[in-house]
């Protein structure tokens, strides 16, 4: 286990983390539950900093929403650079929010930062493909609730507001995400 920890730490600087505070929380966990339960974690890819997944069918359809037509929306969000700032910021806020922080901290945030960016970029037609999993598969057994989803939406709203995205455009993106609630949250 100390070996794995040092591997993780060694991989961290290679990860393309825009914010330094997004370090893996394994460092601070008071109890090493992985060891308690004998969980074997995969090592992070030294190049991408992500924990590799078993192969799954990839398709833009996995993004769960049809992209906007035209460039208006992409422009309202400041193109790819603006979108990356917004999705990163929304995840930063989520990692600081005691209501939902634990759900995220347990998972590969390096990968989530990339895939969430890709998904939003794809939906806004800002020139990306989505390479992540289907929403249903990605959120399976996370146990997220409507309240968790609302918390994330509020963080996304704050990130969009900070980035100067006009309010009607913010809502047009949220309108694409809102129907996904059934695949993301548990009833």
């Amino acid at each position: 286990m100390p070996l794995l920890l040092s591997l993780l730490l060694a991989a961290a600087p290679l990860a393309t983390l825009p914010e330094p505070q997004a370090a893996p929380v394994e460092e601070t966990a008071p109890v090493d539950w992985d060891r308690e339960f004998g969980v074997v974690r995969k090592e992070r890819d030294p190049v991408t900093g992500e924990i590799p997944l078993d192969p799954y069918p990839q398709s833009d359809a996995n993004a769960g929403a049809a992209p906007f037509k035209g460039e208006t929306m992409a422009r309202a969000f400041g193109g790819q650079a603006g979108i990356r700032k917004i999705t990163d910021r929304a995840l930063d806020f989520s990692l600081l929010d005691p209501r939902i922080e634990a759900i995220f901290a347990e998972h590969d945030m390096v990968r989530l930062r990339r895939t969430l960016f890709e998904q939003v970029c794809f939906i806004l037609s800002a020139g990306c493909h989505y390479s992540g999993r289907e929403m249903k598969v990605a959120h399976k057994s996370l146990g997220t609730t409507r309240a968790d989803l609302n918390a994330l939406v509020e963080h996304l709203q704050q990130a969009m507001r900070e980035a100067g995205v006009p309010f009607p455009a913010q809502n047009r993106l949220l309108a694409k995400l809102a129907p996904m609630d059934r695949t993301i949250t548990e009833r």
Partner: protein
Amino acid sequence: MVCSLAVLASTSPCAARQAITFDSGKLILTNGVTTIEGSGGGGLATWATISGMGTGRAVGVSAHVTGLELPDFRLDTHGLAIGIHDRVELAYARQNFNTRQAGAALGLGRGFQFNQDIFSAKVRLAGDLVYGPALLPQISVGAEHKRGLDGGLVRAVGARQSVGTDFTLSATKLFLGASILASATVRFTKANQFGLLGFGGDKNARRSMQFEGSLGLMLSPRLLVGGEWRTRPDNLAFACESDAKDLFAAWAISRRVTLTAAYVDVGSVATFAHQRGGLLSLQLAH
């Protein structure tokens, strides 16, 4: 105490404990405000929303005070509402309708007050205000049981009863793509002036179907501006009753505090025409 109550209410203590959780987890302002009848809605029009900030796994509560200042009258309401699992709303409101100078002219005495208690229940049948299929609204049915406290008087002006029950069917949706909130309600009612002048009348004693609608534009996550329209029966011979309408702004000062201001036109009230004035409502919700 809370726990033992909960256990009594259910065979599963675990599920019961969940039933009394507060999560204050709704999106800001999506709990709506409180109507002058105490149910969740806009100001005049009932919405399909369930009061309180609780989501589907929690309980929410809200309290409101509202004042409506008209040229010849003043209506004050205050009340409490509970939302259970974003599914059931139970509410109580008290209406005090002050006739001021008009009271003297009507022979009631200056400043005479009509009072009414309103007990209401609403159940969400389907859909969601924000989430789910974009074209499926949140749909709720409700009942408002109104108990006027001035029975003799309202019968003297021609009303049949001082107690009555309205039934409502509401559909409400936040169309995010357009930043528009739309709501439509049909109400089956005998109420004269919301029930303040009793139920049924010498002109028409029976329940009729009325419409109430709200249309609002979201200007920010905390600010909704719009208008409402509410048709009303015209049951009493002594005075005609017209539609009520308003222009409103509802502002969530914070997650738990919403302030609503409106310009309200209730038309003619007890022979006094052109009753237009200002409404101010404060709602606290958790």
